[in-house]
């Protein structure tokens, strides 16, 4: 794809954004989740950490979004904000809005929020070893969620929990076992069963397989793919593993220093990455299919999150950075109605990434 014709100047860009909003406005009721310009800080004794800096996200029905970025990019804080579970103190939502199915999350009472969690939106946490209650049987932990959200008798809830166990591939007779009797992969299956017990419309999976071995990871991804299809669930897959994104996601948001630096469909981002950071991520991966001598790492480190930046946060590590990048915050540049990158490089019409030739 030749991107020259698609790189728009500021004026055109505005037009395109309006056009996009118009289109999506018509279909607004299909948006499961919308995050608008979210800012989240952690106010600690040692200073204020700006974890999320202007995060934007839109997710429609049945879509799966991969949220990709490194440690400290603000992926998990964004996810916790959706569930309103950011620990406070020290976490403070500074500004922005999150709409779940059109409802403003921050305007809901705690009671209503509790009703949403688990039934409309649920989350799978990274570490299966610590997210289950060690003194309650796994069956009871699944049934508990079901009883909380659906008017079912204990017996009916137990039956529903048994079905969930079977769906995620655990034998029914393990209903009365405790978490310590399960291996890591099996525990993660139990957690998936809990998360999906009330067939939520949105599932947030925060590095669900990072703690697992590859062959077990393959099993779990298979289970998740199947269930997503079965229940028409929308999903946010938080991961640092681009391989998992390629496998399971339709859309990709690449996150750096608390905001999205590139967003597009899986095809767009993987075949034509437009942000230098995205390109850098691909280049630094050891690839099974190539045996080049040296990897090409991204030099330097993530920026200090206690500093508020006024220019591009990636510029100090960027291969393409110029003086221009160090003058102002970069603007969004659209390459198609679904693909954008936040990079000042594209202010120059002839700018193009050239380190990674398209696959």
């Amino acid at each position: 794809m030749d991107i020259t014709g698609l790189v728009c100047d500021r004026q055109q860009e505005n037009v395109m954004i309006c056009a996009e909003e118009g289109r999506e406005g018509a279909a607004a009721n299909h948006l499961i989740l919308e995050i608008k310009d979210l800012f989240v800080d952690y106010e600690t004794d040692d200073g204020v950490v700006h974890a999320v800096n202007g995060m934007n996200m839109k997710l429609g029905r049945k879509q799966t979004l991969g949220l990709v970025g490194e440690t400290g990019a603000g992926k998990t804080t964004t996810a916790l904000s959706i569930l309103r579970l950011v620990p406070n103190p020290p976490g403070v939502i500074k500004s922005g809005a999150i709409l779940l199915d059109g409802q403003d999350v921050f305007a809901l009472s705690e009671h209503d929020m509790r009703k949403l969690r688990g039934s409309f939106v649920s989350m799978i946490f990274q570490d299966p070893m610590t997210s289950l209650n060690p003194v309650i049987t796994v069956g009871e932990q699944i049934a508990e969620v079901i009883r909380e959200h659906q008017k079912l008798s204990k017996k009916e809830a137990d039956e529903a929990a048994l079905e969930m166990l079977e769906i995620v591939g655990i034998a029914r007779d393990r209903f009365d076992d405790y978490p310590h009797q399960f291996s890591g992969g099996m525990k993660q299956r139990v957690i998936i069963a809990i998360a999906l017990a009330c067939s939520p419309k949105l599932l947030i999976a925060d590095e669900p397989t990072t703690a697992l071995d590859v062959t077990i990871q393959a099993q779990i991804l298979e289970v998740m793919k199947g269930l997503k299809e079965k229940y028409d669930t929308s999903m946010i897959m938080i991961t640092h593993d681009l391989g998992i994104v390629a496998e399971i996601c339709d859309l990709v948001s690449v996150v750096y220093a608390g905001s999205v630096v590139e967003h597009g469909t899986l095809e767009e981002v993987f075949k034509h990455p437009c942000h230098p950071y995205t390109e850098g991520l691909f280049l630094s991966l050891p690839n099974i299919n190539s045996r080049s001598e040296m990897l090409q790492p991204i030099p330097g480190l993530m920026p200090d999150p206690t500093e508020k930046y006024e220019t591009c946060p990636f510029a100090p590590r960027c291969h393409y950075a110029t003086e221009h990048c160090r003058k102002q915050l970069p603007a969004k540049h659209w390459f198609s109605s679904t693909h954008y990158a936040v990079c000042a490089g594209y202010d120059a019409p002839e700018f193009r990434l050239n380190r990674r030739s398209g696959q």
Partner: protein
Amino acid sequence: MTDTILEVKGLKKYFSTPRGLLYAVDDVSFSIERGKTLGLVGESGCGKSTTGRAILRLLEPTGGEVYFEGRNVAKLSRKQFHKLRRDMQIIFQDPFSSLDPRMSVGKIIAEPIIINKLIKDKSALEKRVAELMEIVGLAPRLINSYPHELDGGRRQRIGVARALSLNPKFIICDEPVSALDVSIQAQILNLLKQLQKDMGLTYIFITHDLSVVNHFSDEIAVMYLGKIIEHAPTVALFDNPIHPYTKALLSAIPVPDLDHQRQRIIIKGEITSPINLPDECRFAPRCRHTRPECRQGQPPLVEVQERHFVACPFGMGLD
């Protein structure tokens, strides 16, 4: 004539547990040529780290022999072995827990030199520490910093500098990058590779991440439940895996390439308990090709193609 630096013969490490013997490493043999890298690959609990530690006698082996430059490591006296250990170092997985939080960067790097009484002169020692920090890419101003002030990548650089401080010939890298972010991972991998080139180091690279060893190793040994089940030159292993477990393992890696075509093999079940194992192929309970013969005794590691060893009697004829 090949220049073998390390030879491991029938290495065994059993742990006794209340429920019986745990076969962590069971009859593992391999050798490495000087200046090469052997990737030791497998999933958690397969015995790869225990193998590394048994080679260095950080864990006393239950049986078997380790020859380093022709000398049987187990036969050496404590004193002789101490001296030999200067040539054999290890870089640990977790740069967050493997460094003493109360020691400064400079002290951590200097400690092995002081213990081995290699450099007694203070200014010469300072010079050596500064030199090591430069080699691994640590800024000189960090010399008085403490590990908690540094990020994972820098901490792992300290681990590398410490391992290099005694001018070793051989380093065991035990998952040196698995706790790091991808962009930092590449920095450390490149550093290790450069050091190998510059100093002629020999590595055993222990990891669960096959894409990392593919990039890094000359040969790969795949372990399953304490045994090596396939051992081959890297290219042969990736292009032509023979053991059903290796095949499944390779197919399970998510690849960040949309054009990558492959058939995923999902292994059923989970790794068997390594305690009181029956005398049968260790992978038989999960293998999709299991035949009655697989249940009778453990298949030996056999050379099926040049330098390509497989412990599966049916490997070549499957699929």
